[in-house]
């Protein structure tokens, strides 16, 4: 008798979207032109018209005093990522009540923040922005650039999970038509890392985390004072480490 995973109880398929309340795309830009580096990450609303992208790129270049030849590359990068998002949009993905662990490991200006927590990707009302705001408020983070970086990082991870569930759906539809089977055929990292709710909260476990595990889930914030940018931090996670953007050549 096989375990009935909770995933089989209510898989609903919806057209692709970010599993958050606002359907916003995380965009990451990393360019180097003529020796000048520009790295940035922000959230974009895919419903904004394309003209908005162009004016945004121009404005950013002007504000940061970047030379004009940054603009076309910036445009290309941003439009490419948005197009990729849109290419997913026509397809279907499966919404399960799956709880995935998310990790944050960022350095923004002089603040280092590390955290891990569980996120319900079945909840289409979740809000990474609110989470980021609350986290910064609660941890008394003074640098206002940390919040957006956290929100973008969360969105990126959710985006990856969502896009993987789309490809899983496609696989299933191609190979196993009509047969509803619980998920065990995908080999994506995210799904493997997903916690089986039933097992987790089953009869043996309790909802409350064990005390000796608390330290694992506690956020860590460090303020480093003007250290070298090349400092690496080791982390034994299975996912690739994400670094936040560093400050661009002087703002003003």
């Amino acid at each position, binding site marked *: *008798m*096989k375990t*009935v995973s*909770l995933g*089989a*109880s*209510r898989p609903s398929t919806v057209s692709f979207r970010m599993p958050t*309340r*606002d359907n*916003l795309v995380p965009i990451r830009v990393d360019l180097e032109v003529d020796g000048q580096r520009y790295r940035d990450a*922000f*959230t*974009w*609303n895919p419903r*904004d018209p394309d003209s*908005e992208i162009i004016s*945004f790129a121009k*404005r*950013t270049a002007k*504000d*940061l005093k970047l030379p004009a030849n940054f603009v076309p590359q910036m445009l290309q990068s941003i439009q490419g990522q948005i197009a990729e998002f849109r290419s997913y949009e026509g397809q279907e993905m499966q919404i399960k*009540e799956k709880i995935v662990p998310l990790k944050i490991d960022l350095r923004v200006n002089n603040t280092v923040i590390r955290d891990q927590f569980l996120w319900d990707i079945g909840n289409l009302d979740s*809000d990474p*922005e*609110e989470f*980021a*705001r609350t986290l*910064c*408020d609660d941890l*008394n*983070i*003074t*640098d*206002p*650039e940390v*919040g*957006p970086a*956290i*929100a973008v990082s969360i969105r990126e991870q959710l985006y990856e999970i969502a896009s993987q569930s789309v490809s899983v759906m496609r696989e299933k539809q191609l190979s196993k038509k009509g047969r*509803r*089977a619980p998920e065990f055929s995908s080999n994506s990292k995210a799904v493997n890392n997903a916690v089986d709710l*039933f097992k987790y909260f089953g009869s043996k476990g309790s909802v409350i985390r064990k005390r000796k595990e608390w330290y694992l889930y506690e956020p860590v914030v460090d303020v480093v004072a003007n250290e070298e940018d090349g400092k690496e931090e080791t982390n034994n996670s299975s996912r690739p480490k994400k670094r936040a953007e560093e400050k661009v050549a002087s*703002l*003003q």
Partner: protein
Amino acid sequence: MATTTTTTTATATAPAAANTNTVPTPTPPHPRPAAAPAPRAPSNLGPVKSEAPPTPSSTTAATAAATTTASGAEDPSNIITVPSYSAWFSFDSIHDTERRLLPEFFEGEAAAGLGCRGPDAYKYYRNTLIRRFRARPGRRLTLTECRRGLVGDVGSVRRVFDFLEEWGLINYGALPSGSKQAKERREEAVSQSSLPSGVAAPRKLCTACRSVCGLAYYACEKADISLCARCFVCNKYRPGLTAAAFKRIEITEDAKSDWTDKETLHLLEAVLHYREDWKKVSGHVGSRSEKDCIARFIRLPFGEQFMEPKEDRMGFENDDDITDDPGAGVSKRLCLTPLADASNPIMAQVAFLSAIVGSDAASAAAQAAISAQSRVDLNDGEIDSSINSNMEEESSHTNGLSVNDLLKEAASNARAQLEKERNSIEQSLSDIVDIQMKEIQDKICHFEHKEMLMEKERQQRQCLRDLLFADQLAILHHQRRPQAVATESKYDEKPKPVINIS
């Protein structure tokens, strides 16, 4: 309330919002004393400004503000000016203008008020942007640095930013980083001055009449209002304030452009040669206007000798002057009565006379004039109406009225004021009640939300229970196949058909 110019929305603006057209930097609602590392600005500023706010992002901003305050007791750059067409703005509420021009935050699915799309998000963006700008009012904010500090999608942030900039709530009069628009705006605001174009200090504008204040202005600490001399005398302030709440503050013109030694030398030479002909003096000095020369000259330490010794007869609010060293006596000369700025020549004369004569004598004379007028029905010129005008209100009322009518009028005035008081009390009571209700409503919302979550969890648990039960049934079914037929039919109408029993 003075006439407000070119406001597109003709709503009666609340006094608190309308009067704060020149707003000192407000304190943020979440002060973080532990986290903010920068030192606080000292509170020894003039009465107009509150201390520079401890915004969390402004380590440089706070130190910049501290250095500007250190340079002068009254520093114009700490004053935020807001154009009159944006007088409706207030931190705590959202105005119709905003709702109209940024509907994305307020209509449709956003009306639910959540996430990146609701009024709360709008307020968060707007207040953060404005506070950020006001922390360093001379500096122009760019969209990129702002959106990097705001959690949310950049499209919405850009729209709020553009809106605020267009309405002058951001980057108004800020030092341009190469933009012509801000330069033009600043030049408009400065009506008559010899400011070199690089200086970012805006002129002091009167809250009521929106004109540039002349020599001096009156500032009220409580309500953060600054009035020019004319408006002060016309009592163009809120009924809750009295004249005593206002303090007189001189505008030191030297702060705008310091006189170099060379210029001072020229000035002295010129005065020696040309005596009182200020035109020639200013020509000799070169880059200074006549007015500047005169002002500078009187401020010089020995300038007193050249003036008639009238200081002992000046009795008008001299203790509050914040001018530089050249003696309180010198500045008393400038310390003419409030009406000195008035364009009306008669008023100016009256002001001069009353200044010469002294406040007691002037008020006594006014009293005598009033009583004399009340005896006479006509207001022909035999009574010195010029001295009368010192007590403006009474004079306009007493023209041609008898004592009885005066009394009646006073009584009705008193009654009207009483009504007003009562109304304002009722208003504040109802406001308090509203706020309490809102609090309770918010709590209820919160609880409802929690209840919903609980309900969801309960349903999930129920579902799990059902599954478990189904599993148990399946086991029984396997174990006792023939007997299980009857029981199986009972549970056919299970609502969850997705269970694969294999």
